[in-house]
């Protein structure tokens, strides 16, 4: 795995940190590389801005921060506004389709992928697993870590009782990703998928 810098962000309660942590675990423990995850969060238990930075590397990571990310996973509009401009040219942006309106992004060659992870999670019966759906989607899109390694990291990170649900969520995200990859990245001119503001 080459040096890859990621940022994952959204709001508290979406499982941003766990998403990053699973990826880091897959890269460093399951696949025996190196990963450094740092996080930022506010005082809110729910709903506050929350973000994680992840550096994946074949050698030990020194500087733990991400300046320009190779890949970003953004799950809220706030996160989008705050971070999207820090994607590397040619980088990849993954968003929660119902919560992020991708607009005004003028970085060259950014590939954008969207997934209605919250809805998929709700359909699976637990909104809470939206981050695992995201993780699967990320796995498929990024192809950084093998499908199985990432899945193992997911299952290692959740209580046994929730293994099945999380496995399903992961697979749903992954499959959605595979499908989406085929159909290609989003056209940035697309319709606003979200938000009612009276």
């Amino acid at each position, binding site marked *: 795995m080459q040096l890859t810098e990621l940022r994952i962000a959204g709001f508290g*309660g979406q499982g941003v940190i766990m998403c990053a942590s699973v990826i880091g675990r897959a890269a460093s423990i399951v696949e025996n590389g190196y990963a450094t995850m740092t996080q930022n969060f*506010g*005082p*809110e*238990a*729910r*709903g*506050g801005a929350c973000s994680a930075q992840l550096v994946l590397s074949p050698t030990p990571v020194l500087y733990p921060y991400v300046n320009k990310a190779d890949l970003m996973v953004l799950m809220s509009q706030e996160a989008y506004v705050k971070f999207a401009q820090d994607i590397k040219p040619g980088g990849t942006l993954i968003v929660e389709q119902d919560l992020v309106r991708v607009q005004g992004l003028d970085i060259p060659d950014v590939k954008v992928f969207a997934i209605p992870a919250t809805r998929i999670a709700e359909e699976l019966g637990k909104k809470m697993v939206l981050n695992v759906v995201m993780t699967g989607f990320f796995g498929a899109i990024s192809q950084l870590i093998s499908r199985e390694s990432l899945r193992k990291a997911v299952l290692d990170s959740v209580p046994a009782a929730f293994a099945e649900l999380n496995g399903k969520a992961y697979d749903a995200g992954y499959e959605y990703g595979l499908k989406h990859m085929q159909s290609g990245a989003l056209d940035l001119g697309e319709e606003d998928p979200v938000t*009612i503001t*009276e």
Partner: protein
Amino acid sequence: MSTPICIQKAPENPVESFLRTDRMPHIWCPGCGIGTTVNCFTRALIDSKTDLNKLSIVSGIGCTGRVAGYVNLDSFHTTHGRAIPFATGLKLASPEMTVVVYSGDGDLFAIGGNHLIHAARRNVDLKVICVNNLTYAMTGGQTGPATPLDVITATAPYGTYDPAFNLPYLVEAAGAVYVARWTTFHVKQLAKSMQEMFKKKGFCFIEVVSPCPTLYQRRNKMGDALDTMKFYKEVSKVKHGAPTNEVGLSKSGEIIVGKFVDRERPDFETMMKAHLEASLGEKYIPAEAPTCS
């Protein structure tokens, strides 16, 4: 959406003028009961016609402690556990002020427990509103001194085994003159209790049992905030004047609510003034509203 709701013409939400609206949205979670208590507080302030210029609110640290930062009043967000001694200083220095202490069960009864019992003993004229969400929420849901037996918390992963305080009992034993308990389901009653408290001189205490769906209910598979409110509705029993030693809370048992104590006892300042006047006569110069040259 199906129904047009006319926002332009609607009068302002009565809570609005009590808020530092430039700080909205607040940090509280979906279904957190703290906001509900603030509604009751503002309604009680309106109905009791309290002079808002002579009202201060003092909070400690915690989710509840953030109330001080959202209300558009003289408001003090102090250190963890120390709202009461700060409020004591504030009250004694400006006796004309109504001083409300608004904080969490952990802040008031864990780290701040000593100040609470001493202020109650002295009968300092403070109005204490304790939002009891049965946990330390701000730090992620650890066991607090009001956490019932047999619940899962971040520091009791196998369930709590240390008994909780019965807050009204302890506060009465320490000396409070007014003690009531409600849940966030009892919005009207709570607002009324608050009104009574604003009118009463001395150390007053209202416990509001409140959901922390994020950290307490969720961990204990008690459903979401709405389930909790329904639970309150179901298990609460109003018993005014109930002996406080019989109102302890448990994980899923009855919640006795009501006004438990309402007694007369001169407050600290009254005692002080009367006593010093009697001892010193003419020589006594009471502390006046401050000038501070």
